[in-house]
């Protein structure tokens, strides 16, 4: 190993001993994430077996009704929130940088934070089951059952524990979007990026718009449970339907959020085993983007039986049919690729084919239930259980198992056994179909979902027994698969490099893999550079491309432009630290202590989280470099510090705030939703927040925003005094805006527990005031950075990003003020 390689290795070396857990590199975080998510899959699978034992015979008493309720709730919640979504983030964090020849994703510490948050939240939620305190409301938690009829902490554990994990998912989404758009290798234009990256880009954007409505819903329900604000209580003007809307605006895109990344794995595997480039690359991009959009127009098809107007049902039924078009197109592309290629046999491909076949059956029953009259019959029966498992196991689990077989040698250097894989495949394939196909019939003859038992002689007995037997055969397949993963492989020869002879960049990985990702960041000229570019691997290995060295001993990767992938920055990425772990532990404390109403502990934890995150930002972000430019190799010199839209930090703030605005708009939607369902909203005999104070608040927020624009400008002066004056005045205006906003409901004695109108106003005020407080913290942070010399007239990323936050802050404050002040006048 030459000197430059040694320096590079030293910069990227994984810490040893107990410090190993301070690692933030994508290869470690991605691995831990994958293992944890897989662990939750096994836990969720065990819960399924427990259910199948209970249902194997009529009037069985293996579980009580209450235990069964907890088990099925947890099975759904674990599979969706702790396995299906996290595994996509895990695999993407692990492999996306490799597929793009990047050294790491742009925010490794954010990935680490997301992982620790996921682990803590997941263990907390699952642990509740062992204390008999698990949630019992189904994975959809419908009120009023979960607000008025369930007293324990189960629903709170679900709401707070999973909200915490949803935040981690949004963090991962931010990381992945910026990763795909800005961290591609030079030359990898949009027409050349791996299909996996296209899918992940679409999915991450979907997460950004799908999860916030659920977070808003969680907030409303927790406010009702903890503080008695009656959002879903019909006797005080609330409406449980709002929850259903918010849940399914999340819940339906969620299905595609878990499906698309798995199909993305298929899109990587199929060309490798067909030995030919993917047929219809452009069509697959159409499918990914098209499905991403259309999936947001389907949510009401989960609510066909709630009494909505027929014409509304028609709109969503039509969209549910339309989404079959892009979904089908990509499957045709896969089949076409297999037909034109020279297919080689492998267990990976067996699972891919099983996945496609199973998913097609689930898709067809999906088209059936998208037709409202059929859905009226099938709703809440075992037909739906059959349908959704065909979709999710075919669309998600089988492709992920294929992905395990495919990528295992890349991660561990050893191959899984084809023989054991074949056995596992047949057990899973037969077990799955024996278990789930009969459920369609059980449902058609009338067995409802979510019942802990059934009387004998109704025609359900044999079908249920068959399903239970099938479930154990399926589990047997998983046991074989698990054994294959875990069995000692010391005596087995190391897999050759690029064992499948694939064409994409992740297969550059050496065996055993080095922590640097790639020896040098290549110039890419093809969709399958390992197949098409001459001497490609040799040039990468010899360090003939970019950043083959780490002269300053820092971790570095390239940032490129969005469309053409032209290099624009040498990005320094942060190294190992325990800060994200502590930040996640303390943030977790807020949610966990909050669940049990231990508010002092929650408050202390919140303060600790606040200061940990502050320390993390202060020491690890927008660091002024020792030199402004750097030679990255091949005669190219790039800046080491950029701000504004060219910077990854700016994009992260922009994307995060898009998600934040989505959550806010969900709350605003709630306000107007109540208007549509009530004869008079706001109620005539109830006093509102008035016009004066909300408008004063809007004016103050406008002033604070204007001053922030001025501050950004003034910061470019060498003398910072006017910058300080402007920013500190803006802080005062921020406080004034918050005070005036509170004054409205406060001075008019609005009691949020009295009626949903007051509660809707107060929740908008609460949301906005919290954001104003955050805005003030950011303003003071910018002042402190400048005072400490960590931000200067030239190195201005902090103030630019804070101002970006303030654009969104202004929108939030404006919409809140105008809505609560003026809407009562026109309604």
């Amino acid at each position, binding site marked *: 190993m030459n000197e430059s390689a040694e320096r590079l290795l030293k910069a990227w070396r994984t810490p040893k001993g107990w410090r190993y857990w301070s690692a933030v590199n994508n290869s470690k975080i991605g691995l831990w994430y994958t293992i944890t998510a897989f662990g939750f899959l096994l836990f969720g699978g065990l819960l399924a077996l427990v259910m199948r034992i209970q249902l194997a015979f009529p009037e069985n008493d293996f579980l009580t009704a209450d235990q069964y309720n907890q088990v099925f709730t947890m099975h759904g919640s674990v599979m969706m929130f702790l396995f299906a979504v996290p595994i996509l983030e895990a695999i993407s964090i692990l492999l996306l940088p490799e597929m793009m020849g990047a050294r790491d994703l742009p925010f490794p510490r954010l990935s680490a934070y997301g992982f620790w948050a996921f682990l803590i939240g997941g263990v907390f939620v699952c642990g509740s089951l062992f204390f008999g305190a698990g949630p019992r409301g189904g994975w959809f938690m419908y009120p009023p059952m979960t607000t008025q009829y369930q007293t324990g902490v189960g629903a709170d554990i679900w709401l707070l524990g999973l909200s915490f994990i949803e935040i981690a998912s949004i963090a991962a989404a931010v990381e992945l979007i910026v990763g795909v758009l800005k961290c591609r290798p030079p030359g990898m*234009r949009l*027409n050349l990026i791996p299909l996996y990256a296209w899918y992940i880009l679409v999915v991450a954007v979907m997460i950004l718009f799908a999860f916030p409505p659920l977070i808003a819903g969680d907030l409303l329900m927790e406010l009702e449970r903890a503080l008695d604000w009656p959002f879903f209580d019909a006797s005080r003007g609330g409406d449980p339907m709002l929850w259903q809307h918010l849940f399914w605006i999340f819940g339906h895109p969620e299905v595609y959020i878990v499906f698309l990344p798995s199909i993305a794995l298929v899109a990587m595997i199929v060309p490798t085993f067909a030995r030919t*480039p993917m047929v219809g690359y*452009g069509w697959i*991009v159409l499918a990914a983007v098209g499905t991403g959009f259309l999936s947001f127009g389907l949510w009401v098809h989960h609510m066909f039986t709630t009494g909505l107007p027929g*014409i509304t049902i028609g*709109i969503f039924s039509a*969209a549910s049919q339309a989404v079959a078009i892009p979904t089908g197109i990509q499957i045709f592309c896969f089949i076409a690729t297999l037909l034109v290629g020279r297919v080689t046999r492998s267990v990976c491909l067996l699972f891919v084919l099983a996945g496609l076949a199973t998913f097609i059956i689930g898709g067809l029953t999906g088209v059936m239930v998208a037709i409202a009259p059929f859905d009226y019959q099938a709703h809440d029966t075992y037909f739906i259980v059959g349908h959704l498992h065909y979709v999710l196991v075919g669309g998600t689990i089988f492709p992920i198992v294929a992905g395990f077989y495919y990528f295992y040698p890349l991660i561990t250097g050893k191959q899984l056994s084809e023989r054991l894989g074949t056995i596992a495949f047949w057990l899973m394939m037969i077990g799955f179909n024996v278990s789930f196909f009969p459920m369609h019939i059980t449902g058609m003859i009338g067995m409802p979902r979510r019942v802990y038992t059934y009387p004998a002689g109704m025609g359900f007995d044999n079908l249920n027994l068959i399903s239970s037997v099938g479930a154990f055969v399926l589990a047997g397949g998983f046991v074989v698969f698990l054994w294959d993963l875990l069995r000692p492989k010391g005596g087995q020869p190391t897999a050759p490099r690029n064992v499948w002879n694939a064409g994409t960049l992740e297969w550059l990985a050496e065996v055993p893999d080095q922590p640097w990702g790639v020896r040098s960041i290549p110039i890419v000229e093809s969709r399958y550079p390992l197949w098409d570019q001459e001497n490609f691997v040799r040039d990468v290995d010899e360090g003939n491309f970019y950043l083959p060295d780490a002269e300053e001993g820092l971790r570095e990767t390239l940032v490129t432009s969005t*469309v053409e992938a032209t290099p624009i920055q040498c990005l320094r990425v942060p190294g190992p630290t325990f800060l994200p772990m502590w930040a996640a532990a303390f943030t977790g404390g807020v949610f966990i202590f909050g669940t049990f109403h231990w508010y002092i502990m929650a408050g202390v934890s919140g303060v600790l989280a606040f200061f940990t995150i502050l320390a993390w930002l202060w020491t690890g972000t927008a660091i002024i470099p020792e030199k402004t430019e750097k030679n990255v190799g091949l005669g190219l010199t790039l800046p080491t510090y950029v701000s504004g839209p060219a910077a990854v930090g700016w994009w992260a703030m922009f994307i995060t705030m898009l998600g934040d605005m989505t959550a806010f708009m969900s709350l605003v939607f709630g306000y107007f939703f109540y208007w549509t369902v009530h004869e008079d909203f706001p109620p005539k005999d109830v006093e509102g927040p008035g016009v004066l104070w909300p408008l004063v608040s809007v004016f103050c927020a406008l002033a604070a925003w204007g001053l922030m624009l001025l501050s950004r400008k003034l910061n470019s002066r060498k003398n910072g005094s006017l910058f300080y004056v402007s920013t500190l005045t803006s802080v005062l205006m921020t406080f004034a805006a918050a005070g005036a906003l509170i004054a409205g409901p406060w001075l008019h004695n609005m009691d949020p527990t009295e009626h949903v109108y007051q509660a809707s106003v107060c929740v908008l005020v609460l949301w906005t005031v919290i954001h104003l407080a955050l805005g003030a913290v950011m303003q003071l942070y910018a002042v402190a950075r400048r005072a400490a010399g960590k931000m200067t007239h030239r190195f201005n990323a902090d103030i630019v990003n804070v101002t970006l936050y303030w654009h969104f802050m202004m929108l939030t404050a404006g919409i809140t003020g105008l809505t609560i002040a003026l809407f009562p006048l026109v309604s």
Partner: protein
Amino acid sequence: MKIKLWWLTFSPLCWAGHFLASYLTTAIYCAKFASPEGDALPVRIAVAVFTIVALSLITFFGVRSLRLHRRGDATLPHDDDTVDDEQRFLGFAALLLAILSGIATLYTALVFVLMETCH
């Protein structure tokens, strides 16, 4: 003109706008203003207008994408590292998305052709 990534989203956004406008108009009209018989004529007229606007925009983006796709000499399957390949690919993907968005918009509009009342 050079196509940016945003261009791909314009047609689907037209579908989304049409979808949301149709849904919200219907939901509000049927909940607040419809007669007990639920005659949906005003909504049907409104959706007809939305559909004309949305389809016109989608057609514009589709035709423009087709023109951009036709520009340049890059050959199929547009997998080379050149500006022409990149732009022809983006034009093609945007055209396909326009067609899909147009079909999905017509699907929504069809509901209002077939249904005469809210119920």
